[in-house]
């Protein structure tokens, strides 16, 4: 009976899908799925347009574009396990090592033709998706962090130049912190995001490391603490910096946009966001101030990767190739949510018109890519958990970081 019922249900489902299918115009077309997240509706519309162009060029391939907005990696991992993952999907560099290790991605080396000009891509970004000589993803774009500063607040405080060093940043932050009559702060000098993706370069500034060679957490060293201590001290002693929740903002960008912080570190995505959400905001960008006389910033990149279990690999590669081609990148680069990963396109950006982007582009030469082996998700959870507690003064930074490192390493050890 069970069998009968399930086969009945199955045939009903089959009928249903078939009747849906027959509605398609071009019979016999190959359908591939492209999954990603949507950081912005404008960006999504642009991608739809590019996909339409792709479908016009390859009439026998139909692309189903699917947006997964929340818990993207959980959804993708679960689908990979269930073997119903999309053919092509976005992958953040920081999650890439795990998926590469488990062999669920298709190596792309054999698909790449010389005219694709792989050498044109920023080598750091390509390296982020390489394992044992295999390339698993083609970077779609990237962004570094730069210092954003509120020009109006700077003019009011009589500061002409953005800070060049971290000490200057701390000094300016004091000047830029303004109080109302009751003694409440209504503008902080510096907005911080106390999360590891924004702190890794600070850990490295004095020679510290996030992970050791075996991918165990190693950020509780005196060198790392020296960098992080700068962030903690400014927050606790100077009280000239704030996190978004302190001022009731939803994010660092929101805090800056509302004028609650006069400086912050953020990426390319912020520029179009401000133009749309806070059109009257007068802001500019500069390179991230040097710490310990060293230039440093973070770089975040996302690639298109192919599912190893995909049944339409040729078509999937055609899509990746098209999406990362020079022509497509030129078009999407002009929107300014991220920087193009091809050097030729990056160079082609009109530097005068894009002066806001210049510090971000400059950062790409010395940025730390947000990636550190397959253990990073565990390290990230534990770091974020404890760093905040040091920030609000529950425990010393040293204790907090030691605790975070120990917990992370125990979990890594036990899961190996």
């Amino acid at each position, binding site marked *: *009976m*069970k069998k009968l*019922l*399930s086969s009945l249900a199955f045939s009903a489902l089959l009928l249903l899908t078939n009747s849906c299918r027959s509605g398609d115009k071009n019979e016999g077309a190959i359908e591939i799925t492209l999954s990603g997240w949507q950081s912005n509706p404008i960006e999504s519309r642009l991608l739809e347009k590019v996909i339409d162009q792709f479908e016009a060029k390859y009439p026998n391939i139909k692309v189903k574009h699917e947006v997964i907005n929340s*818990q993207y990696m*959980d959804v993708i*991992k*679960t689908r*990979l*396990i269930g073997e119903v993952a999309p053919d092509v999907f976005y992958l953040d560099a920081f999650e890439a090592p*795990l*998926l590469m290790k*488990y*062999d*669920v991605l298709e190596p792309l080396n054999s698909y790449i033709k010389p005219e694709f000009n792989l050498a044109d891509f920023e080598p750091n970004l390509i390296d982020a998706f390489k394992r044992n000589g295999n390339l698993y993803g083609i970077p779609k774009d990237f962004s570094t962090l730069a210092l954003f500063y509120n020009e109006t607040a700077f003019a009011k405080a009589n500061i002409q130049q953005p800070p060049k060093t971290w000490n200057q940043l701390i000094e300016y932050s004091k000047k830029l912190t303004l109080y109302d009559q009751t003694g409440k702060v209504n503008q902080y000098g510096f907005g911080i995001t106390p999360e590891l993706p924004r702190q890794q370069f600070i850990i490295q500034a004095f020679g510290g490391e996030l992970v050791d060679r075996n991918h165990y957490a190693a950020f509780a060293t005196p060198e790392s603490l020296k960098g992080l201590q700068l962030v903690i001290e400014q927050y606790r002693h100077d009280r000239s910096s704030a*996190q978004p*929740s*302190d*001022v*009731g903002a939803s994010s660092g960008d929101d805090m800056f946009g509302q004028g609650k912080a006069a400086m912050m570190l953020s990426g390319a995505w912020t520029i179009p966001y401000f133009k749309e959400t806070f059109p009257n905001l007068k802001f500019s960008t500069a390179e991230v101030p040097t710490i310990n006389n060293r230039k440093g910033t973070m770089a975040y990149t996302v690639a298109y990767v192919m599912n190893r279990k995909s049944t339409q690999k040729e078509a999937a590669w055609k899509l990746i190739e098209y999406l990362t081609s020079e022509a497509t990148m030129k078009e999407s680069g002009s929107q300014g949510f991220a920087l193009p990963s091809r050097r030729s396109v990056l160079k082609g950006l009109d530097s005068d018109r894009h002066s806001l982007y210049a510090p971000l582009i400059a950062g790409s030469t010395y940025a730390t890519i947000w990636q550190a082996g397959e253990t990073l*998700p*565990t390290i990230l*959870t534990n770091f*974020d*958990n*404890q760093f*905040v*507690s040091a920030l*609000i003064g*529950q*425990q010393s930074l040293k204790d*907090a970081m030691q605790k975070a490192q120990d*917990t992370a390493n*125990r*979990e890594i050890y*036990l*899961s190996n």
Partner: protein
Amino acid sequence: MLNKTIWNKQSTRETVSGYLFMTPAIVVLGIFLIVPVIFTIVLAFYRVQLLGEVSFQFAGFKNFVRMRSDERVWIALKNTAEYVAIVVPIQTILALGLALILNTNIKGKSWFRVAFFLPTVTSSAVLTLIFMWIYNTNGLLNSFLGFFGLPTYNWLGDPDVALKGIMLMNIWATAPLFMVIYLAALQDIPESLYEAASIDGAAPWEKFWCITLPFLKPVTFFVIVMGIIGTFQLFDQSYIFSSGSGGPNNATLTIVLLIYQYAFKNLDMGYALALTLMLALVIMTVTLIQRSLFKEESLD
């Protein structure tokens, strides 16, 4: 003899048709409830790797031994227990109080019932987002506290109050459901008992203590059990509050959130299932203890 076989035949037929009618339910429950439960119990003793090459490796009690030295399990247990210990009594008393008020003949009774019940039918994710606005540093709650000259808090960022904030929200959201259950039970108490008590000269307080409460005992047992199960499974609120990390400094870490982290962030399915099993055992134990407590009292 003949009769017997016919009877037997009929009974088999009845059984068959009975099962036939139940088949949809059995299939659905089997696939979505019983099979997962069996899988949970079995796989909790395995090292499971699902991504890429699927592999199962028998691990004996390793997953359970690991729990003992996992500090975060204890923190999560402590947080969850604290949460249960505070939320369940308050929400039960609040539900009873509201039900008692609405059981009297006040004006606009049904309007109040609907208004009180609304939070329960609202999705908890939406509620959490609304409450995050209320808890915002410049939000409603702080403005309210500030207006009366009371201290204000960073409800979302301060670990000392983060869990309390979630408690407050959950009490507000679940008490009405139990209120409705109490309300139904209150209407079942025969009016004649109260009349008899009045004739005997009982004060309202005595009536409540000697008639209402004993009559509500089975319902109270149900409400507390459901409350404990619900609160032990706290997940979505603390997930949204801490964006999944359980921080700051593990202040909002609950068992289910920890299970989620191990299962989906670390892909450590075996250990996550062992934790699930542990949670089930904890809930079962608490329920059993309660049952014996309630039974003892009814013997007096």
